[in-house]
């Protein structure tokens, strides 16, 4: 291990002091070699970010404290350095990029000045010299027209661009190690692919090591050379990439893989990891994962497992790896969450429940003193779709393409500009006031963020009963209370919890309460607006299972709005791909995902990081970002980014083509092919 760039031994961090102290990092040891990518993988709240901050000694003050261990960079002990010494390390030899590019840049400084600041600090460059170097750096991170961007402010850049600028700032000091803390979590898949590609390219060019912190197995698979899995403040497994993805040893890693949704698991329930990460303000007397582990036996609960080296740079913290112990018969016991009976897919041949025709939602742009309307943001610009009873339609697209607006427009939470929404053969856009209010029980919504979707000042019972009272469901308070308790049981929570407040629940539990709230008014259609994107993989699996169970029991229809194609392939019957306010491709899930016709769909699919690298398709890289819906490009909206654009794409928007009975595509490539055949 003499070639190690960074050597971390028994690093421990406490937040707070005394008995209630939280111990987010507990004796973590690893090393990173020059030029390699080391991934730290784990659910939220496992101490990944704290580890990274501790390396740079940037823990939240005054509560956070490194209470033990050593961090050596080239044999130099960082924990012993004085604060002034750390300053040349931070940004100079170890640089860091954060998850949220929107808040990591100072909004009142030009991006050039922010990069130059770092250059001055670490390289002593000033004036025109610094400016030249900044432009080089901007070029390096793939920002087009770097000289012009030098003088721009962060708000003039898109999210992906800001993350590139952050990377440029990190590179300014020529670091030997780049710590990337969830660098792409806030970005869309196509932008994520661009940024990951950039990091990989820069790493090769500069021979820089990368510590990648992420919860996304796909990203890990694409990027990492070696992987460490973190759980509840400890490393539980460490292995080279191929070994890890071939055969993960720790039951936790194993379950993480099993919880990933994909099309091959369509017919079964997803494997879930029950429960959540334990609170870290306690002393553990057994394995921290024991309560959630289906292979746990008595020893796991009474004895803390040691670290076992199982190969070169490979090890696991689990009693199963201990040859001296023989696990009891627990192995292979079928838990309640084993893949359950086959779930029948699809609801073909049923009645149409919702039919949306040419829906448009435009937001006027007001300017000037008298607030004249100077333009329209065409958030939704002619969307047509239909959902049958008991069916799931997934609406897929990047952020800003208008998918949430479609959902809210259908629910009449926004004023629609034009088009029709027929629900059960009633035209919703024409309904007003009481007529609309009384129909609202038929269609409900589940939101993305489980933290903002419930009033923090209301008890669970009030939250669930609110809709029932508004819709006059249940004749007496007694009946409503009973129904609320029944609903909680139905979504897998205990009815006794009815008097608690939302903040007493975890994210996944809150999402269950939101589902119970929506079910309270007996809807036929639920719009699920990214219901799992704020949740960890293991919790996501629980929610997806629940939604499918409910669909089967109650015959619900879902409009599932998401950007996650693996979720789509698991849960949806049909899928519609949206780009800039319009649906560009629609069809059965199997058709669209296996044989995408529109170049945008193809690019989206190829940009999703794949867990199995061997099966990876050819990458299609999209350049640039989503254009603004206030001034969409002429012709096909996608043509400026399309790798296969034809001359006529710039002239007119492609017509609707039906390659098969169940399929719709809007692309000149497809319509031309169809015309030739005809």
């Amino acid at each position: 291990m003499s070639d190690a760039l960074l050597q971390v031994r028994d690093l421990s961090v406490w937040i707070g002091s005394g008995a209630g102290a939280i111990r987010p990092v507990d004796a973590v040891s690893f090393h990173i070699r020059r030029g390699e990518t080391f991934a730290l993988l784990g659910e939220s709240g496992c101490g990944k970010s704290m580890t990274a901050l501790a390396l740079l000694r940037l823990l939240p003050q005054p509560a956070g404290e490194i209470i033990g261990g050593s961090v050596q960079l080239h044999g130099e002990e960082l924990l012993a350095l004085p604060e002034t010494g750390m300053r040349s390390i931070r940004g100079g030899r170890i640089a860091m990029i954060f998850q949220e590019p929107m808040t990591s840049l100072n909004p009142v400084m030009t991006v050039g000045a922010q990069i130059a600041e770092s250059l001055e600090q670490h390289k002593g460059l000033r004036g025109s010299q610094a400016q030249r170097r900044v432009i080089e750096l901007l070029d390096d991170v793939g920002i087009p027209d770097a000289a012009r961007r030098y003088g721009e402010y962060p708000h003039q850049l898109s999210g992906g661009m800001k993350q590139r600028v952050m990377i440029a700032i990190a590179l300014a000091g020529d670091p030997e190690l780049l710590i990337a803390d969830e660098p792409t979590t806030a970005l869309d898949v196509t932008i994520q692919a661009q940024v990951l590609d950039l990091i990989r390219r820069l790493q090769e060019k500069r021979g820089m090591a990368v510590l990648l912190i992420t919860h996304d197995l796909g990203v890990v698979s694409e990027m990492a050379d070696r992987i460490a899995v973190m759980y509840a403040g400890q490393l539980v497994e460490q292995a080279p990439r191929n070994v890890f993805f071939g055969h993960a040893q720790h039951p936790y890693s194993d379950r993480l893989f099993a919880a990933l949704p994909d099309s091959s698991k369509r017919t079964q329930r997803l494997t879930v990891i029950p429960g959540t990460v334990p609170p870290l303000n306690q002393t553990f007397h057994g394995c921290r994962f024991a309560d959630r582990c289906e292979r746990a036996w008595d020893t796991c609960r009474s004895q803390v497992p040691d670290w076992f080296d199982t190969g070169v740079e490979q090890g696991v913290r689990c009693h199963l790896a201990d040859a001296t112990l023989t696990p009891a018969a627990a192995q292979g016991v079928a838990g309640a969450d084993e893949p359950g009976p086959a779930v029948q897919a699809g609801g073909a041949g049923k009645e149409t429940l919702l039919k949306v025709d040419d829906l448009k939602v435009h937001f006027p742009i007001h300017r000037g003193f008298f607030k004249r309307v100077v333009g329209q943001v065409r958030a939704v610009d002619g969307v047509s779709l239909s959902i049958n009873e008991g069916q799931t339609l997934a609406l897929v697209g990047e952020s800003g393409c208008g998918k949430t607006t479609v959902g809210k427009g259908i629910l009449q939470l926004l004023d629609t500009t034009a088009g029709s929404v027929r629900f059960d053969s009633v035209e919703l856009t024409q309904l007003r006031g009481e007529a609309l209010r009384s129909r609202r029980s038929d269609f409900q919504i589940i939101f993305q963020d489980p933290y903002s979707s419930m009033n923090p000042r209301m008890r669970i019972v009030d939250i669930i009963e609110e809709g029932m009272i508004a819709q006059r469901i249940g004749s007496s308070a007694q009946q409503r209370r009973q129904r609320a308790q029944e609903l909680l049981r139905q979504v897998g929570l205990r009815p006794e919890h009815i008097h608690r407040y939302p903040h007493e629940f975890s994210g996944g539990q809150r999402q269950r309460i939101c589902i119970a709230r929506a079910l309270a008014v007996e809807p036929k259609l639920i719009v699920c607006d990214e219901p799992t994107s704020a949740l960890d993989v293991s919790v996501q699996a629980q929610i997806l299972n629940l939604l499918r169970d409910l669909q089967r029991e109650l015959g619900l229809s879902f409009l599932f709005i998401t950007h996650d194609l693996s979720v789509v392939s698991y849960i949806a019957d049909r899928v519609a791909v949206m780009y800039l306010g319009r649906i560009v491709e629609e069809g059965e899930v199997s058709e669209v995902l296996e044989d995408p016709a529109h170049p945008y769909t193809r690019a989206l699919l190829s940009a999703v990081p794949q867990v199995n690298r061997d099966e990876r398709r050819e990458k299609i890289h999209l350049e640039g970002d989503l254009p603004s819906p206030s001034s969409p490009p002429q012709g096909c909206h996608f043509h400026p980014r399309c790798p296969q654009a034809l001359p006529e794409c710039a002239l007119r928007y492609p017509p609707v083509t039906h390659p098969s009975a169940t399929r719709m595509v809007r692309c000149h490539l497809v319509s031309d092919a169809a015309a030739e055949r005809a």
Partner: protein
Amino acid sequence: MIQPVLLWTDALIFVLLVVVLVFAWVARGREHLRAPWREVVRSRIAVASLVVLGVYTVTGLLDSVHYRKALPTQDGQQETQYSGDVLSLLDTLLGPLRTQEEKTYSAPFATQLYAKETVSGPDGTQTRMFPRLKYGGAHLSDPASQKGADIARRSALALAEAVAVLLLLYGLLGLRLARKWRRSWRAAMGTIASGKAEVPWRTALLTLAVFVLLITLMINLSAAYHVLGTDKVGQDVLYQTIKSIRTGLVIGTLTTLVMLPFAVFLGMMAGYFRGWVDDVIQYLYTTLNSIPGVLLIAAAVLMMQVYMANHPELFETMAERADLRLLFLCLILGITSWTGLCRLLRGETLKLRELDYVQAADAFGVSKSSILLRHLLPNLMHLVMIAVVIDFSGLVLAEAVLSYVGVGVDPTTQSWGNMINRARLEMAREPMVWWSLLAAFSFMFVLVLAANLFSDAVRDAFDPRLRAQR
């Protein structure tokens, strides 16, 4: 025989008291309301300020129970006639403090007037001298030699009384907490004394000790001396300052009561409905904000003064007239000061209305009024709470400034502002009369300081960002 008198401000103060008590009772059952307050009473500074505010409030409340005494019935008179003087419970408690009036200025603890006067002796000779006071130190035959010892004796007595009262309070508190904690009385007393209880009872007791000592000192000394001197017409300054407490509290609290409906209602309407409602409300408060506040208040007060002067038949007693003027001052201050909170609430409502839970309520077909009441108002309450507590001290100071300018309360109403206003002339005298100003200043200072410290603690407890760090 007495006749109770309910002045307008009395009624409103008691309404406010009931509202506060009801809120406290409701908050007891709601964890999200209770938790921040529990946080508040854990802070030592907050508890000390709370004790100070409590003492002031009790004084103010005692001063808000008014009545008129019956005049002695004369022969052939059927009905009882009542005195024109409206007294309060506090007046009765203070007893001699109110009635022992000297001729004019006298310094604190003085036995003689502050100015020389020509006194004609029994033999007809006229001498220029400092005459003895009618009440201050009147029991002493030779003030120069006896005063020091007399004061020391009375202070020692006061100290003994204070210690006795405190021990009693300490013991009672110990009993109460022993029952609550289910521990022995001795153990509870120990926990209080060590300062390790969850609520800093020791701090509360110590702060209370200061006040108990001050009160016993006042009782013992003021019977024989003018502790803070007398003013131009010979009235006791200590009495004036104590009576001013009610005026300060009335202005501080009733103004917020007037202001809150405007601020909360208009702010929520503007933020939630947007569009033309928002425009109208915004224009309203920007216009109001751009008029200099003092001018607007002066104009309104002067108009009201003229009206009152022209309609003397509306008021049975002087006190009622002065009280109405105080009430109108609160109204005017309230109407001119709601804009700041309104703007804050509008902004917060704009943010809240886009949150998912408001959208979810919309999706359930919940009516707009119940969205405003159930979803928005409870989530704005912390801002209202903070604004009310912070505004309080500002308003107490504002009263002083306005009375100084001459557009404040009625000149007959005892208030710190009026005292400071009069001190303008007193400070110009030679030798200077300093005690009025100092007395008003220190009473006001303690109240405003306590209110500010308390508001800091309240703000910290309600601030979700600070709460997350704990």
